[in-house]
């Protein structure tokens, strides 16, 4: 039987929800589904993974025990596991970590990899992704021994497919890496990561200053949303550039994108046009975004956001 593996990412001791979406991309291929996990996370992830159709969970370790984070080591160990189990198709997330690992695996195997796919067909070896910053969509075919795909987080939703998975250990043999990871410095961990959030609420020039962004953070909390920004807000120094959505910022596909005081430039759209629902709150009924969204609110964001925050707090308690 054909074998397909999914590279699993963990966050706060749980399988990232976006990974479950990536697993669902492999469902209709009637292949045996492997999940590759690292660093002693197999036990914690087993239940979730088998509930979503994984047949075998492979925990990758090395001769020295659990492998500490080092992209080069993880990639090399992952390749050894693929070779040992004779797996030729690998799926992962096009998240920061996923891009890092998949690209390294592809380079070391000289294997074809399509990054940031919104759909894949594992029997035809084809994948769909956007091109030219979202202004075109293209279909690619991978040719070669291996087939690697990085799925855009949230492009596919998780589909439950309960079953039983076997847990196995795989011990890789690693040499000293040419990369030395000295330290990983944590960012602001209480905030939801943009690329994986279900809801994003973003502010642009209309926010006027840095302090006003607090009303977006306050509104985001009760609905577990991430806060994004336009380049104008970032360049003005109101918020960190890690929050920028768009051509030169992050590309996101949340279920809902709420743009507050953002005009909807081509470059901003490049980063969020694949959102499920786009909602715009803007004073100007003729702003570009007001014609390219699903729900247009022509009003002052300083009236709407506090009212919305109040309602959300009422229902979430």
């Amino acid at each position, binding site marked *: 039987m054909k074998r397909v593996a999914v590279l699993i990412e963990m966050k706060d001791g749980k399988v990232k929800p976006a990974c479950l979406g990536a697993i669902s991309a492999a469902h209709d291929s009637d292949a045996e589904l492997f999940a590759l996990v690292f660093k002693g996370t197999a036990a914690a992830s087993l239940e979730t993974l088998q509930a979503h159709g994984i047949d075998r969970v492979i925990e990758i370790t090395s001769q020295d025990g659990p492998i500490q984070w080092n992209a080069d080591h993880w990639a090399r160990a992952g390749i050894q596991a693929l070779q040992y189990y004779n797996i030729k198709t690998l799926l992962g997330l096009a998240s920061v970590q996923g*891009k*890092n690992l998949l690209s390294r695996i592809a380079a070391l195997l000289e294997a074809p990899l399509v990054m940031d796919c919104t759909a894949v067909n594992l029997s035809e070896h084809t994948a769909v992704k956007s091109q030219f910053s979202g202004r075109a969509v293209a279909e690619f075919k991978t040719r070669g021994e291996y087939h690697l795909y990085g799925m855009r987080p949230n492009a596919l939703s998780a589909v439950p497919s309960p079953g039983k998975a076997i847990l196995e250990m795989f011990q890789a043999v690693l040499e000293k890496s040419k990369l*030395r990871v000295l330290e990983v410095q944590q960012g602001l961990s209480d905030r939801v990561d*943009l690329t994986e959030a279900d809801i994003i609420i973003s502010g642009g020039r209309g926010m006027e200053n840095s302090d006003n962004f607090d009303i977006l953070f306050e509104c985001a909390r009760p609905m577990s949303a991430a806060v994004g920004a336009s380049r104008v807000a970032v360049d003005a120094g109101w918020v960190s550039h890690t929050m920028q959505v768009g051509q030169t910022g992050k590309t996101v596909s949340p279920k809902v994108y709420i743009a507050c005081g953002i005009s909807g430039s081509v470059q901003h759209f490049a980063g969020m046009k694949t959102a499920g629902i*786009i909602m715009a709150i803007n004073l100007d009924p003729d702003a570009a975004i007001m014609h390219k969204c699903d729900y*247009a609110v022509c009003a002052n964001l300083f009236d709407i956001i506090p009212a919305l925050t109040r309602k*959300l707090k009422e229902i979430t308690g």
Partner: protein
Amino acid sequence: MCVKHVPDTAATIRIGTDDCIDENITFIMNPYDENAVEEAVRLKKQTIDADVIAVTLGKGTAEATLRSAMAMGADRAILVKSKSSHDSISTARALCAAIQRDGDPDIVFTGKESVDNEGFQTMFHLAACLDVPVVSNAVKFAMTDTTIRVTCEMEAGDLEHIEMETPCVIGAGKDLNQPSYPKLPDILKARKKPLTEIELSDLGIATPASRVEMIKIESIKEERYPEIIDGTADEIADTIVHVLREKAKVLDG
């Protein structure tokens, strides 16, 4: 460093009948490659005896991007000419061959991604061809002797501090530096700097066994039909909550 000639992000991309884009639009240097050039030029200013070379694989028109790199301070440039488009495996093989033919570099800077096809892969393939370590999305860079310390950005603002030896490949992120835009005298000087042209076919690169092939491309039509939400602030907030809960099903409560 490797620089790529890409369509301007503000340009309207039209897809022609042959699945090629209409090239009657402005092309620019890939934005992150500007950071790569800037960092290489800065390093030269610190270490004096560095030779900064801009390399590209592209059509003859990509010369413009190489001239911009030289206006920003690169000493010379190499243009590997090819009319066809390439996936990251064959791009990396071509860049690697051109680089190695020129000499052994200590550091190869690239951008962290190219904005036209967002592959995020070329630098990793290039590093594998050169058999050297690689990092991408570098936001801080420092070099002592042959040891390099870089800080790379990860998820949710997490930072990773990495050490490696030269030779190596580094993918420049946007925050690595602030590219300085060349002044007229620099632009004029860049016209006289040496540019070597090589035909891709002269590099004698074997066809890779694997590849990514584009089989179809089409423009996206923006099809959204806005529904207007109006009323008092409270009414609007109620409607938004309703959409979140009933239409998008993203609220638990």
